[in-house]
């Protein structure tokens, strides 16, 4: 059974004012209905003419655009489809057939901090590995290496294995690497919610500086405070569809009313 997939087109045209265009975005997942998920069951199902999975519709036709230099917030309840949307934008999942996504420029996603961090390796080794995953060359990593540790305030722990770090230290190190990433479009999933108050302040400063630089950003968050503070525009997703779009305060208001 071949599944048809939609289009994710990458272009690079600075004169185009749209950074991202999403047209008629649909996505469903195949969830296995059987408890066992192996070869025996697959052959059995094929013989009996059972599909063995059911389609779970997650995104049901999204349309929106992100302008260059815009700070877009995406809000919605758990399970509304926000993360799936981000993963499709990031190219991790493929969109379904008839969907079209146009990404204009270099998109850098942060679905999770510290991807590929390995507890058995030292901080130094992990920094280089994580840097490679973010697309940095070794030369670039050498240049920013000291800054990374300084920003994370963890210089003393460079040669410790990561398993000896506290969870707060891990997040600080990961964030410190992540913010080095340079892309035309940054896609961030909940990364604001890290560290203690002092580190939060640093993060907020970083986001403020991005906003000042007119960096194109898509931020998925549950923090309405951040939506009001940073975003130029916001989108609320509910049950796989866009339920509200526009002014951040109004969207935040609508989001809060979901819980009343």
């Amino acid at each position, binding site marked *: 059974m071949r599944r048809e997939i939609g289009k994710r*087109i990458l272009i690079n045209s600075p004169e185009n004012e749209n950074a991202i265009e999403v047209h008629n975005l649909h996505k469903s997942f195949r969830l296995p209905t059987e408890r066992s998920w192996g070869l025996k069951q*697959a052959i059995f199902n094929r013989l009996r003419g059972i599909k063995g999975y059911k389609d779970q519709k997650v995104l049901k036709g999204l349309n929106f655009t992100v302008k260059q230099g815009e700070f877009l917030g995406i809000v919605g309840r758990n399970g509304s489809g926000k993360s799936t949307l981000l993963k499709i934008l990031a190219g991790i999942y*493929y969109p379904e057939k008839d969907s079209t996504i146009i990404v204009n420029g270099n998109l850098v996603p942060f679905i999770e901090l510290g991807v*590929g961090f390995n507890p*058995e390796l030292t901080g130094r080794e992990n920094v280089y*590995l994580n840097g*490679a*995953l973010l697309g940095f*060359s070794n030369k670039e990593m050498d240049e920013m290496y000291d800054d990374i540790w300084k920003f994370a305030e963890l210089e003393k722990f460079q040669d410790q294995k990561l398993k000896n770090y506290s969870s707060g230290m891990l997040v600080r190190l990961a964030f410190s690497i992540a913010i080095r990433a340079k892309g035309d479009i940054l896609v961030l999933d909940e990364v604001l919610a890290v560290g203690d108050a002092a580190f939060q302040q640093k993060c907020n400063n970083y986001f403020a500086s991005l906003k000042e630089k007119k960096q194109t950003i898509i931020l998925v968050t549950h923090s309405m405070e951040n939506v009001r503070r940073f975003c130029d525009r916001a989108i609320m997703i509910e049950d796989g569809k866009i339920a509200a779009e526009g002014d951040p305060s109004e969207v935040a208001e609508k989001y809060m009313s979901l819980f009343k």
Partner: protein
Amino acid sequence: MIEYKDMGIPKVLNKKNRVLLRELTKTDFKLRYQGSVLGYLWALLRPLMMFAILYIVFAKLLRLGNDIPHYPVYLLTGTVLWSFFTECTSQGIQAMLARGDLIRKISFPKYIVVVSTTFTALINLAINLGVVVIFALINGVQPSLSWLMVPVFIFELYALSLGIAFLLGAINVKYRDVMSIWDVCIQALFYAVPIIYPVTMVANSSMLAAKIILLNPIAQAIQDVRYSLITTEATTTWNFFNNPIVMAIPIVIVVIILIVGSIYFRRKSKFFAEEI
């Protein structure tokens, strides 16, 4: 300027992918022997120990291979190449699951994960071949120009392993039974490949069996390495059949497995992030 790129076609090993490949290989290699007292030495010790066992059982007790010159080195070469093949395929098949965290969280060409684990196996093989060469020299094998042919056959064995890793690795993402099946296949293949016994011994009892054995690309590659490195007494597919058309069969098998494996992997890799 507008530049269209289809995300289905990864730019094979552009700079970014090369850095990623190198870092993943390094990590893989470091992690494999992490936490063990002898560390990297295990890369050497494992095949040597396997060799010691096989040597005692088959050469000393069962007296196989008495008519082959330099039989201990001949045996060691076989076990080293066999370990390479099993390591390459087993680790390659499991690579996608082992690196599931990356596949779910970032977008990158998935084949890098498989290739990086097979590179680790290649590094191990290089170390082990160093040992083989030292043993060979101690054993009185004369260095010769035919040694230059060894990388060619190793490349063939590598291409086969990579093809198997792509094909079975892609299926293994969805059906985890594949790894267990492959474990059994490896056990069976070990006896189907003339690693411990000389092909001539089989030929004495059944000519047909010997022919089938030598059409297996693994057997062909291993025998050719032994022929070029250790002794021209080694039976190769070439000197057994002496027929260019038959000689092409193992090579065709390798090419087909590699092509089918790569195409299947590429097609399935789009959904790995959802299925892992």
